[in-house]
């Protein structure tokens, strides 16, 4: 009985999930207007005050795990722990103002029914309010503040993610009113994933692939695309060039919905960051705030793994750095990490070594494709 009280044992809907709605521009504007009216009501009441902003806490302590009841899909999400932004605390006053400034910008963008990227927004705010914005990171965090204040997705606010993601392989894509794009003919540069989630949502996609392969590194992706690995292994290749952005996750999620029979596998370095990237594709991340839970996919770990180390020379194993150990610790502390992944991570920490995918080139450039094919055929993924 006691277990039932643990958050992880509850059903998804019982876990007091805080999520961001996907809204139309006019709905978001209405929320901003309500926020403004509430602010003014409190400011002009008989007992006037400057209202605090209640934000969903984006700390790991507020992270919860949702496990699919009938499927393997799991995701992380934020629960109902709040923190506040207040003008009255001198060291937090700027953060408070930033929230209102970003809301103002979003309101105007939505009025014009336009969209902007985080980068564009940063420069706009930098010109408009240099005292309050000095880095892209501040802008990105403030956007997440607004997302968690208004409970609507970043995209609903009129902000496009600038995506780093690319896709290649056996996938036909058609944007509305455009020609069909064959991703196997895009060369090593692949098809660039748009940051416009609305566009991605309306993509028509077809495939004869049997696998979807996530590649951590851009260079490896280019090598595989150039070698047309998807001809030997009927597959779609996708990379976010490191940690995935929302748009890349969104597209992957759409592919997994459209082609539910295709297993999704990840090719990452054998180090804690590699596993962390895999986990972000799989479950989402705290940094994605209230939208983290939305695009979870059942991603399997193809390689590199502990037993692959026999394939690579001893010299290519490098000692783990303090940063690696920090990431390992963070992953270990998460209840979402599945047992086999946890064992691999423990092995990394125990050996004190890390290995990169490129080490497989030791036996020739074409060795990487052969390695992947062999593992897929043997269903050697976890």
């Amino acid at each position: 009985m006691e277990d039932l009280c643990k958050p992880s044992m509850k059903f998804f809907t019982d876990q007091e999930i805080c999520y961001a709605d996907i809204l139309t521009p006019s709905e978001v504007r209405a929320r901003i207007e309500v926020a403004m009216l509430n602010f003014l009501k409190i400011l002009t009441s008989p007992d006037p005050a400057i209202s605090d902003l209640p934000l969903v806490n984006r700390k790991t302590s507020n992270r919860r795990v949702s496990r699919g009841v009938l499927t393997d899909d799991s995701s992380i999400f934020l629960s109902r722990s709040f923190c506040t932004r207040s003008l009255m605390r001198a060291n937090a006053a700027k953060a408070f103002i930033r929230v209102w400034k970003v809301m103002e910008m979003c309101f105007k963008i939505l009025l014009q029914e336009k969209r902007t990227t985080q980068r564009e927004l940063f420069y706009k705010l930098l010109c408009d309010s240099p005292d309050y914005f000095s880095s892209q990171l501040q802008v990105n965090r403030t956007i997440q503040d607004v997302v968690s204040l208004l409970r609507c997705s970043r995209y609903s606010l009129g902000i496009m993610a600038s995506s780093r993601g690319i896709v290649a392989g056996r996938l036909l894509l058609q944007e509305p009113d455009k020609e069909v794009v064959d991703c196997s003919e895009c060369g090593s540069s692949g098809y660039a994933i748009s940051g416009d989630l609305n566009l991605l949502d309306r993509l028509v996609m077809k495939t004869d692939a049997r696998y979807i392969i996530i590649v951590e590194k851009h260079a490896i992706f280019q090598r595989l695309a150039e070698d047309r690995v998807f001809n030997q292994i009927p597959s779609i290749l996708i990379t976010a060039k490191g940690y995935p952005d929302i748009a890349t996750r969104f597209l992957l999620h759409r592919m997994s919905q459209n082609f539910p029979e295709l297993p999704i596998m990840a090719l990452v370095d054998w180090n804690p960051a590699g596993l962390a990237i895999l986990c972000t594709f799989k479950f989402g991340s705290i940094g994605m705030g209230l939208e983290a839970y939305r695009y979870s996919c059942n991603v399997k770990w193809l390689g590199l793994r502990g037993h692959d180390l026999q394939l690579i020379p001893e010299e290519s194993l490098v000692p783990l750095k303090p940063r690696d150990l920090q990431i390992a610790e963070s992953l270990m502390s998460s209840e979402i990490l599945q047992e086999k992944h946890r064992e691999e991570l423990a092995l990394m920490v125990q050996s004190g070594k890390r290995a990169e995918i490129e080490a497989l080139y030791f036996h020739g450039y074409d060795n990487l494709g052969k390695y992947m094919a062999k593992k897929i055929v043997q269903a050697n993924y976890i």
Partner: protein
Amino acid sequence: MEVSSASNLCLHSLILVLEAAWRSFRTSTAAVFLRNFGMECSLSKLPNPYSAAFQSQERGTEVCLSISESIDVLVSEINHFFQKMLILNVPNIAIELVIEREDIPGSRYENVFLANRSNPGPLSTSNVECLKSGLKDYVLKHGNSLTQKCNTCFATSKHLKVGTGMACSTESHKSSGLMMEVVIIITLNVLSTIEWQNYGLTLGKIVDQGECVLEWEHSTLPLGRHKTQLEQHLIKKAVKAALNNLKEKHPGILLSAHAVKICSHAPGLARSLASLILSSNDPDFQGECFSLLGLQSREIRGDTVEDCIQAKIISVIEMNDRKSGQRKTVVPFLFEDDCHQDSNYQDKEYEEGEDEFSYWD
């Protein structure tokens, strides 16, 4: 009573700590003063002068001094000192200074000091009120002349900002109900010329016109050498009360450094809020905003909305600042129901740069 002997001080502004233990003041004044000049002086126990002066026609206190030199210097200083005593503005008190020199037979110098008659209060006026009016008159006079009013500095006393405070000890077997009263007068435009440290105050900085930050430490208040712990405690309390009184009566001055910092964000915030409201294409929304702000639609032009919001924000910050010391009121949330229903609610601070991202990011 102590009056700082800062003769080089610009007297436009002055803080006086008045010890309202009148009896001890009267018997010790001359002695303290003379000690400053390094002279020998012994006072015999004097009859109670206070009640005597009021209730009978007898003369008050007589102090006899014997000195051997520099009588002129002494006379001018004594004059000056008694003039300063008039700041107390105690009704029906007169001081007569009579000097007869033994070495010059027949010589006689007389001077009578009367309290300010221009604005005589009723006899029931409290000490602190007397001191307040006396100090005001004093401040309006130029330099240390004590007699001339300065019309170039202040045309009227309207520009003076006055605060009063009082602290009492309860009567017990140790003390006899001591009371401290403090009057503080400041004028902002000469803040920088005052030697604040003489009063245990440190002037932090002056921000723009009309806005200033005064940093002061209790430990360096003008406590004097002869004060007991109880007296020191009461002076601190009374000075604090007077400063709070000053803050309450004159919103916008003497804001804490914290409030000044928060206020500096008001224009930026007001600009964004006003811009958001004015950019809307929804007349109902705008109308509701204007009516909340108490603005008529025909008044709306240019910076009206921004100025109005800014004034309201600053007024809340100032009001909060005056509440310091008392328990601050609970600040409402922008979306109230949300958080009240929340069983997991934690009032966690979420300070700048504290965002914690997992390594999955």
